[in-house]
């Protein structure tokens, strides 16, 4: 192999799909240019690039704060300099699959908050819906603009050992991380000059423009310049950087709950010249905290009366309230059925086989095979409260079983899926590490648009299958080739 010392020393993980390393022990065609480019660089140069990336993140304040013993420590989200590359045909497949899935999920939300045909026809059992904490009766019969509930989604995809894409989770509430898609690309431009155009990488910069266009279109008032705001929980939120970035890129006001007030079922923001009516709210505050009069009365993050204004149709809220019922992990099991039911199509993207522990037979099966399973809470996120069967001790498994038996409805189990691997630059050489993919889909009155790219999260610890940033994960720039 003449290609590269970095490549020659690369040891792919057995039985795992490798994004770069082909079956014939060669570099896959779409990775070839990148490997050629970096083989011209010494390990020293690459180390310098890695340093530069860190410095750029730090000086721009692209940090999140970890609170430890009362003092905030600012950290950067680890970034691996080697891009993750997706071919045009892979992307076309993913794009089609996500559009189909999102269309069905959105129809499901409209149905479940209106006539509930899918329940009456016996496709989805009623107890799954009513036992979901994110199913909100407050949304019943509430008409949302254009019948769109999920304006922004970040569906998590993974690939098994033969490269097949699976949907791991549908994130339909307030998915985060899109600022990293944008910032990672800006950093790559600096790290590898000229490489992006040489490889024919599609641009992601349209994201804020499309999002802003969609938000404007939702305005309940027919005026030329509606007021769009981004509602953030404030500076202590770990995603605050993302909120300021998006607000700046779209040129909209960044507000907190205390900046808004409701009068006569209309939402206003408090300005130095008095109250100004707000038409569209892109909120990054969870449903539970949105309105203390309707949901959690302790909430200081929300706005009292906002649900009343929403119900009257005087303000648009993005994403719609109550979308969590569709990304509940117990409801996830029924998504392929939903696609057949609403669209009369076969699902393009597969679900990971999932056992509901609320079902006694399945629970017994799972308990017998716990060492080959991953058990998750149905409404958990961020990689917290998971049991990775293959890595857990006897004691941990026993404790977890007790936890499950307290309320089996809240748990699901999936066979351990072997996530695909991609090369990461680590101290002078390339090492395979496990990755996933989160493309961001924007659903507006003109249909669904997916910016060609997304967030690739990577489990930086050797052998780890958990990519969440809270569990030692990092990210990569994600390239979609033209």
């Amino acid at each position, binding site marked *: 192999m003449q290609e590269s010392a970095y490549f020659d020393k690369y040891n792919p993980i057995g039985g795992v799909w490798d994004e770069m390393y082909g079956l014939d022990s060669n570099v896959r065609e779409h990775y070839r240019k990148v490997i050629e480019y970096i083989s011209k660089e010494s390990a020293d140069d690459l180390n310098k690039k890695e340093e530069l990336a860190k410095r750029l993140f730090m*000086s721009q*304040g692209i940090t999140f704060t970890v609170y430890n013993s009362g003092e905030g420590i600012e950290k950067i989200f680890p970034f691996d300099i080697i891009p993750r590359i997706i071919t045009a045909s892979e992307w076309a497949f993913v794009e089609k699959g996500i559009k189909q899935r999102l269309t069905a999920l959105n129809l499901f939300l409209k149905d479940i908050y209106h006539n509930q045909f899918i329940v009456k026809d016996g496709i989805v059992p009623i107890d799954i819906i009513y036992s979901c904490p994110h199913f909100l009766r407050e949304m019943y019969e509430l008409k949302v603009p254009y019948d769109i509930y999920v304006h922004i989604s970040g569906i998590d995809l993974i690939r098994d050992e033969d490269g097949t894409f699976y949907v791991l989770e549908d994130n339909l509430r307030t998915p985060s991380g899109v600022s990293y898609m944008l910032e990672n690309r800006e950093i790559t431009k600096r790290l590898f000059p000229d490489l992006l155009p040489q490889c024919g990488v599609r641009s992601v910069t349209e994201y804020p423009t499309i999002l802003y266009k969609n938000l404007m279109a939702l305005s309940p008032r027919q005026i030329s310049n509606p007021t769009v705001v981004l509602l953030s929980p*404030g*500076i202590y939120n770990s995603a*605050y950087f993302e909120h*300021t970035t998006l*607000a*700046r890129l779209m040129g909209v*006001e*960044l*507000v*907190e709950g*205390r*900046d808004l007030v409701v009068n006569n079922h209309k939402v206003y*923001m*408090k*300005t*130095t*010249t*008095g109250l100004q009516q707000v038409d569209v709210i892109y909120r990054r505050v969870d449903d539970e905290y949105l309105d203390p009069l309707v949901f959690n009365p302790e909430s200081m993050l929300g706005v009292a009366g906002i649900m009343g204004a929403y119900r009257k149709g005087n303000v648009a809220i993005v994403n719609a309230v109550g979308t969590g019922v569709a990304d509940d992990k117990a409801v996830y099991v029924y998504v392929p059925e939903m696609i057949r039911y609403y669209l009369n199509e076969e699902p393009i993207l597969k679900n990971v086989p999932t056992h509901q522990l609320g079902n006694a037979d399945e629970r017994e099966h799972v308990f017998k095979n716990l060492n080959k399973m991953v058990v998750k809470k149905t409404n958990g996120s961020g990689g917290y409260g998971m049991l990775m069967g293959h890595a857990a001790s006897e004691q941990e498994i026993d404790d977890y079983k007790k936890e499950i038996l307290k309320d089996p409805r809240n748990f699901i189990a999936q066979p351990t899926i072997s996530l695909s691997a991609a090369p990461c630059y680590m101290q002078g050489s390339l090492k395979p590490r496990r990755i996933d993919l989160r493309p961001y889909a924007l659903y507006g009155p003109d249909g669904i648009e997916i910016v060609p790219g997304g967030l690739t999260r990577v489990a930086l610890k050797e052998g780890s299958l958990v990519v969440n940033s809270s569990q030692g994960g990092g990210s990569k720039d994600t390239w979609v080739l033209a």
Partner: protein
Amino acid sequence: MLSRVAASFYWLSRYIERSDGMLRMLKINYASSQDTVQEFTWEPVIRIFAGINGAEIEKLENDSRSVLKYMVTGKNNPNSILNIITLARENARGVQEHIPKDLWQCLNEYYHTVKDARLERSLQREDPIGVLDILIKQVMLYYGTAEITMERGEGRSFMNIGKYLERAIQSVDILDTKFSSISENPDLLTDTTYWKHLLLSLGGYELYLKTYREGFEAENVLEQVALNNDFPRSVIYSVNNIHRYFDRLKNDSNVDTFREMSFQIGRLQSRIKYSSVKSIRTDGLHGFLTQTRNELHGIGNSLNEYYFANS
């Protein structure tokens, strides 16, 4: 502009100005503590800037290093430099998309300098004046950066109103404390170092020497600190600037509230402008300062109600 954003500008600026006043005060008082045969008391400084009660002051007042620790890096003192700069930075963070990047970085650096454990160590073991100078330089950098980079709009007006309001209140407090000490200890009236240090801590020493040829007199100090239009830390200079920057809000304001506040500021401004040392003496200095302080707080309260929507 969002009310919260305006309030953040205002408070950010008040905290910075407070830290500046405090640092200069601490520096001069420390120097003066090295220059006396009697036991030096920090009581007035603590009273002006910390707002703690008699017993707590007594514990600290004669130990310079403890006072410096409490006032600069004290975690339990809500008004320590560390805590107010943390608050200033939080205010800036909440309006990050409204301030120039340079200014944010400058403030960030100030914050990291105060938070650095080495600073606390040097403050205890090395020359405190050197340490205080490092911090004073950070404030000057901040003011320079703000001057060069800040957009000349509504935000800057709120910043400057905050800055001069804080400065006016400080000058009033300092005068009040220093002159009330005289009534307890009349010897101070003729103590030249007492007045010299007061002027030094306000940066008004050189101006005083040029203006008054007859040595240090209490009435002259009062005239300079309260009524001298050219002295940047005088009460009248600060109030003139509050008026000047408030006036710029005219186009961005609701007509009624603007008129009301304009009246409030104008009344205070004229009262000070048409005062003389003699008239202040006749009416009583303490009364004059108390009324001025109340009216300054009144302006703060009106801003809070009319512009920051915190009624």
